């Protein structure tokens, strides 16, 4: 029998306000094996930890139970504490009497009763604990960044500058992401291309960075330090080693009717195309669906035009498998198409555009060469209405519940840019709230109102109608308590942003968790904001939640710092709580190997002595360096041959027994 010490933490008033800690100590003292029990205000403090260390020495404790917060919070802390006092760190058990008890109970009597039960379960478990020892696994010193927008680029540059190799996988033919489509950036109004292009070029030219553009992540295996990722290279039908990006093929291509994604479909592009002038890598790509050659086998103008001989219609998908120590998710966002917001007439009127479409209209490299004109007739608008929060902060099923965060600021930017070019245009912004937290953000917004004379009206637009070639906007002014009916030549919708649709399948491949909006969840909302709860997976940019460029870049560098910290290690200490198989019970049925997400289980023919018979049997063998201790195999094994160290079947049964007593 173990000699067990029980340490009940008050956590200030977090626990002590709803749990009678003294009563818990008294009750747990009576549990079998308990030789010492006490309570303390903050067990995780230095003096609290010393209390544990002293008791281990004084009472010769062989097992320790700490009744405190979640093991996710302080299990590592207390493992170090008991280890410092000479115990094996796995002789510690945590009873979570905070998250699972004091925080969810209001009644002290109930809370105390439950805390005693949870403590008793941990005591029953620690009775069956055995010292465990970790193995180590080597770290592959290369990182993968999924997504080549500003987030992915910044993360990759920082990791590469620290001396580690980085691969960027980008599904589009070029890196650059959404930022490359922007005109100017708030709050300084510098041109997006001017500040992004150098970074794209740096990423393309960096000796430690390898770009996999027009590629997708196909499969992810392995675990922190040792991921194995299969990347699908989609066929460009262009030999990347020969193409010089001269664009001669683009000029000759007779298929010119494909909506240009880069310009939000406001103009058309050819079947063979270079996404935009600053694309990195600057390579042409053939859109197979639009290409005449792929339709009828004819044409071939690009082949005849290309002096480098780079066109290759026979390219097929290729799969590349590489090893990585860390993976950064930087999958970014899209603006929703407000097609089911009929009241704004987005589907019917060309003059109703989203803000990203407006961004392209304003851009010198955009479909109108930067001339602010109405898409319907090419004439300059006399008045423009901006509508905020389209699809954000809503409660209906077509809305996002969250604030898209960037719209207030880019709308102020748009309004200002319009006024800057054409002071005669009347600009009105309808808003619910104007949110401008951020350095120099409120000053920026106030400039729009005070210096540029943009009309800000608190209230939402209820309806947009088209009559006599103009738009009639119906809205309410909540501050003046009146209805407004005004003419507008253009209406710009600040449509909500949402995570890229590929994010969910990537999350599944990475076993990284997501919230209900498909944003990646961080390991801790406040203390570990750039790490996923899945070890070795890091988050960069809007994939984690709406962000503007400064925040994205800050988070991208933070993620890079975490990756560098991981890759700087030569070895990682493996989880000691790993599975193992009892070869006399093993049926060799392979079900455990089937469920193992890490490929940690193999089968061997072994000579087994069972019930007096010696025979060769096919039995499961666990590679302890690969096993992550998830326990899927133990619950799958019908004979109970598979068991998990530290969470053994008999330990769990003992806990259940203690709870049900």
């Amino acid at each position, binding site marked *: 029998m173990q000699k067990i010490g029980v340490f009940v933490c008050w956590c200030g008033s977090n626990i002590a306000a709803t749990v009678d800690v003294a009563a818990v100590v008294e009750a747990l003292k009576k549990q079998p094996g308990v030789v010492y029990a006490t309570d303390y205000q903050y067990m995780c403090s230095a003096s609290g930890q010393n209390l544990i260390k002293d008791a281990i020495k004084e009472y010769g404790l062989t097992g320790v139970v700490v009744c405190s917060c979640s093991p996710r919070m302080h299990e590592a802390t207390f493992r170090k504490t008991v280890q410092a006092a000479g115990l094996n760190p796995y002789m510690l058990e945590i009873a979570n009497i905070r998250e699972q008890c004091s925080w969810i109970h209001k009644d002290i009597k109930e809370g105390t009763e439950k805390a005693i039960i949870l403590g008793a379960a941990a005591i029953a478990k620690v009775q069956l604990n055995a010292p465990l020892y970790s193995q180590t696994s080597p770290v592959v010193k290369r990182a993968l960044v999924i997504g080549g927008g500003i987030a992915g680029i910044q993360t990759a540059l920082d990791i590469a500058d620290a001396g580690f190799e980085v691969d960027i996988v980008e599904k589009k033919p070029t890196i650059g992401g959404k930022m490359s489509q922007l005109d100017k950036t708030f709050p300084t109004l510098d041109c997006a291309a001017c500040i992004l292009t150098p970074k794209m070029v740096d990423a393309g030219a960096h000796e430690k960075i390898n770009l996999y553009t027009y590629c997708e992540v196909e499969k992810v295996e392995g675990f922190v330090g040792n991921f194995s990722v299969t990347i699908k290279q989609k066929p460009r039908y262009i030999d990347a080693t020969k193409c010089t990006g001269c664009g001669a093929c683009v000029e000759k291509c007779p298929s010119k009717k494909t909506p240009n994604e880069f310009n939000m479909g406001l103009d058309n592009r050819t079947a063979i195309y270079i996404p935009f002038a600053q694309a990195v890598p600057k390579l042409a790509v053939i859109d197979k669906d639009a290409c005449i050659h792929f339709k009828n086998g004819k044409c071939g103008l690009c082949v005849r035009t290309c002096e480098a001989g780079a066109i290759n219609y026979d390219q097929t998908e290729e799969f590349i498998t590489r090893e990585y120590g860390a993976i950064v998710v930087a999958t970014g966002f899209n603006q929703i198409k407000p097609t089911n917001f009929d009241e704004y007439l987005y589907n019917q009127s060309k003059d109703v555009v989203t803000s990203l479409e407006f961004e392209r209209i304003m851009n010198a490299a955009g479909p109108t060469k930067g001339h602010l004109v109405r898409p319907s007739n090419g004439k300059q608008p006399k008045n423009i209405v901006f509508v905020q929060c389209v699809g954000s902060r809503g409660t209906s099923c077509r809305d996002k519940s969250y604030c898209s965060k960037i719209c207030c600021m880019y709308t102020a930017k748009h309004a200002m840019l319009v006024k800057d070019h054409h002071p005669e245009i009347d600009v009105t912004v309808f808003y619910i709230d104007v949110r401008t937290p951020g350095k120099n953000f409120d000053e920026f917004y106030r400039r729009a109102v005070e210096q540029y004379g943009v009309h800000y009206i608190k209230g939402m637009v209820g309806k947009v109608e088209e009559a006599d070639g103009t738009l009639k906007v119906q809205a309410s002014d909540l501050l003046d308590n009146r209805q407004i009916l005004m003419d507008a030549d253009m209406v710009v919708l600040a449509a909500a942003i949402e995570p890229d649709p590929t994010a969910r*399948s990537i999350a*599944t*491949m990475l076993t990284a968790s997501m919230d209900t909006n498909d944003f990646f969840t961080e390991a801790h909302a406040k203390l570990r904001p750039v790490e996923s709860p899945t070890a070795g997976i890091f988050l960069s940019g809007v994939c984690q939640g709406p962000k503007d460029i400064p925040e994205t870049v800050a988070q991208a560098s933070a993620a890079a710092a975490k990756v560098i910290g991981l890759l700087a290690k030569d070895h990682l200490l493996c989880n000691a709580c790993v599975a193992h198989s009892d070869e*006399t*019970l*093993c*049926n*060799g*049925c*392979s*079900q455990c190997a*089937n*469920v193992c*997400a890490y490929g940690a289980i193999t*089968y061997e023919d072994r000579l087994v002595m*069972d019930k007096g018979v010696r025979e060769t049997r*096919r039995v499961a063998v666990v590679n302890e360096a690969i096993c992550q201790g998830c326990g899927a195999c133990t619950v*799958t094994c*019908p*004979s*109970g041959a598979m068991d998990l160290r530290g969470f053994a*079947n*008999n330990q769990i*049964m003992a806990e259940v027994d203690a709870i049900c007593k």
Partner: protein
Amino acid sequence: MREIKELLVQKINELLDNGTVDRVAGWKAGEFCYDAAPAVFTKENIDELLYNGFCGANQSKFLVNAATTENRILALLKPCDTYSYNQLVKEHRVDPSRVYALGIPCTGMVDVNKIKALGITGITGIEEDGENLKIATIYGDASCKKCDVLLERCMVCKGKNHVAGDEMLIPDEEAPETPSCADRMAEVARLEAMTEEERFNFWREQLSKCIRCNACRNACPACTCRTCVFDNAKSGLAAKVNNTDFEENMFHIIRAFHVAGRCTDCGECSRVCPQNIPLHLLNRKFIKDINEFYGEFQAGADTTTKGPLTSFTKEDCEPSIVMERGE
């Protein structure tokens, strides 16, 4: 059936004589003609081999212990037996290189209890006669409709096609068909429609008949653990189960969980139950749920596909949906 038996005997003798196999796993009559049970034959006693409407027993499970020698054993597999056979091969419990699997046709096996329930006793033989059965008894000949007395498994027959086998006695396309005469999921749907209390009472009543003879476990082709958790003192499970006032509940429910996703719905558990507990309904409920959550799946249809409960795909339905439906 008579012609099939003749063909079968001819084929068995050929395989024994040419040395392909040295033993045959088949059926042997017991005290009564309808007591056909699995048995292993050699050249010497092959005359005792039986193959008639009472040979419902699934042969595949017995290969786990019988197919362990250098010389191959001949397994006589009815179409539905081949599903269990495949499942055992998939789980490495039967080594197919030690088996010569002969697919034999089947026209539906009968449940002797159903015949007896019709008032026909003293049975001495059985013969097919179109949609009817001619039953010889010590009181003279009797007859009944075949559909009324088929084993539950045969009423929802998986079809005449074998999904495994080194050789077919006759090609599947030429084989006779067992017409399916019941809806496989009707009983499960009836249980699902019950209130929780009704369903609880239904199973309490049924399972209270259990005498823990372990026949279901011993006949089940999915229950092939070297040491069953219920026989393993170290697992603590048997002691725990005995501790409740209703150990049979736990035994059958745990067994159903252990075979979930692997059960081919062969119905042996119910067929062998001396207390006539409809145990197959537990498994069939799992099968129905698995089909609905993860797409149609037939355990043992091949030897390679991962089971729906031991594989993860991006198309899997979300756990929240399973949770919601599970309530």
